[in-house]
């Protein structure tokens, strides 16, 4: 009897908001606002000018319309070169990322190989492909080949990291099963590790191909081939109708490739 009475008498209480947590919240938001204000000057923020000079902006935009497609064949050809450049840059990167990725994985390589390899990949990844492109233009001359080399190195840095993370997440028991047959270390990787990570690796590679097509469209600005070269020329020549045409071609091609590669990725996963 008493227990029933007790149950009725008891009321549910919401947990009291913790003072410490709410203070932390306020401080965090405050800090965020302070950082925004501190960066205002440096970023040269002038929002009022957007409104005051909106007339000029509209006039500028008018220059883009209607887009001028008279030279579309050249644009399409350059776009194709851009894609081909991305194909080679990505393909070479995938080939190099397989050994580099495996050697950066803690569960495969000893630390004295794994750590230096990771640092090397960090360096390849930290430097933007545009910077590599500028360097390679000097080394191998103007043109798409410099772009291929730039994408190759930068993408190897990224894919090796993604590949090694996939390797570190594998199930170790099949590898042990292979080891128990008397296989070599390399055979353990080929038969025990790679079949497990292959779908992820393919998916990552396709994703990087998408991104590389996007990156390749700007590599031409520093002279590393592809549609970026023409784009840079027409912008500098104030030919906005042509600029609009090129931008439209880039957007359409990149979108089509994204859709295709997404379809392919769904197939392998």
């Amino acid at each position, binding site marked *: 009897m008493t227990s029933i009475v007790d149950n009725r008498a008891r009321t549910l209480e919401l947990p009291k908001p913790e003072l410490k947590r709410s203070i932390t919240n306020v401080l965090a938001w405050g800090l965020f606002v302070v950082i925004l204000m501190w960066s205002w000057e440096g970023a040269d923020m002038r929002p009022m000018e957007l409104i005051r000079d909106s007339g000029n902006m509209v006039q500028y935009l008018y220059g883009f319309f209607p887009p001028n497609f008279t030279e579309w064949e050249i644009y399409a050809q350059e776009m194709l070169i851009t894609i081909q450049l991305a194909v080679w840059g990505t393909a070479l990167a995938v080939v190099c990322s397989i050994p580099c990725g495996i050697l950066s994985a803690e569960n495969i390589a000893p630390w004295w190989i794994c750590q230096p390899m990771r640092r090397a990949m960090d360096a390849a990844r930290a430097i933007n492909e545009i910077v590599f492109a500028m360097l390679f233009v000097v080394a191998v001359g103007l043109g798409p080949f410099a772009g291929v080399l730039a994408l190759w190195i930068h993408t190897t840095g990224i894919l090796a990291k993604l590949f090694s993370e996939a390797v570190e997440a594998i199930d170790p028991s099949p590898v042990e*099963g*292979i080891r*128990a047959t008397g296989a070599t270390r390399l055979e353990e990787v080929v038969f025990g590790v790679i*079949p497990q990570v292959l779908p992820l690796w393919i998916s990552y590679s396709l994703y990087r191909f998408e991104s590389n097509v996007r990156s390749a469209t700007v590599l031409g600005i520093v002279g590393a081939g592809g549609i970026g070269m023409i784009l840079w020329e027409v912008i500098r020549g104030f030919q906005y109708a042509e600029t609009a045409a090129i931008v439209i071609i880039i957007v359409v091609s990149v979108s089509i490739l994204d859709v295709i590669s997404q379809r392919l990725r769904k197939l392998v996963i």
Partner: protein
Amino acid sequence: MPAIQVAGLNKTFNRTNRALVDIHLTVEAGEMVALIGASGSGKSTLIRHIAGLVAADRGNAGGRILIDGVPIQQGGQVSPGARKVRATLGVVFQQFNLVERMSVMTNVLTGFLGQITAIRGTLGLFSKAEKLAALEALDRVGIAQTAAQRASTLSGGQQQRAAIARALVQGAEVILADEPIASLDPASSKRVMDTLAKINCEDGKTVLVSLHQVDYAARYCPRTVALRAGEIVYDGPSTNLTPDLLRDLYSSECDELLAHHQSEESVDLEAQLASQIPATMAATA
């Protein structure tokens, strides 16, 4: 020459947790030996040491393990030649350890990796004769029709038999099975144990199988080694493993080892064990 020789083996995890304590074990060629014990008694640890997948304690405490007279590890160090020894040693695991995304055939073919050149193995260039041998091994364990399927599409029992086929193509004289039936239903368990018994009986392979349940040990293996807390507490004929002895050996853990009977039928477990043991003797005689 004994097939498996373990002498003075000690293994300590995290400096304090003694998983194996001074293990001495000799298994003669052609024997089928059960290794029983409750969870955590060291069965898997012992098998993994014999397979050279784990190194024992450093120094003298590590003891040594010989397979057909060849050391696979001693003094806490896996021998440089362990890879060669592993090739003569088939291991069957509780979780099958197949590569699920590869075909059953390719999984079985990996059994050849220890015998062929590293280049051919790495490139996966198996000869026609090897492929036929793999298919034959699959046929022996009764799943030849699944050869082209991905391993992940097989049932647990079939996967375990594929793993046994992998050990078979190794041409191993010694088969180590680490709780091969712990994740299988009773019907699959029986087929897997029958397969192991067949290999032992027809091919004369030495089989060391760790088991969680005593009745399987009694049914299939003439000799049983019982582990408790990392120590061998019994080594002798399986027929002597009466429930009373088990109770003596394991006290509170005894229920776990005999749990199988209770779940299968609500018969009095002592009566069941008593009736099974003569049947086993008839089967193994």
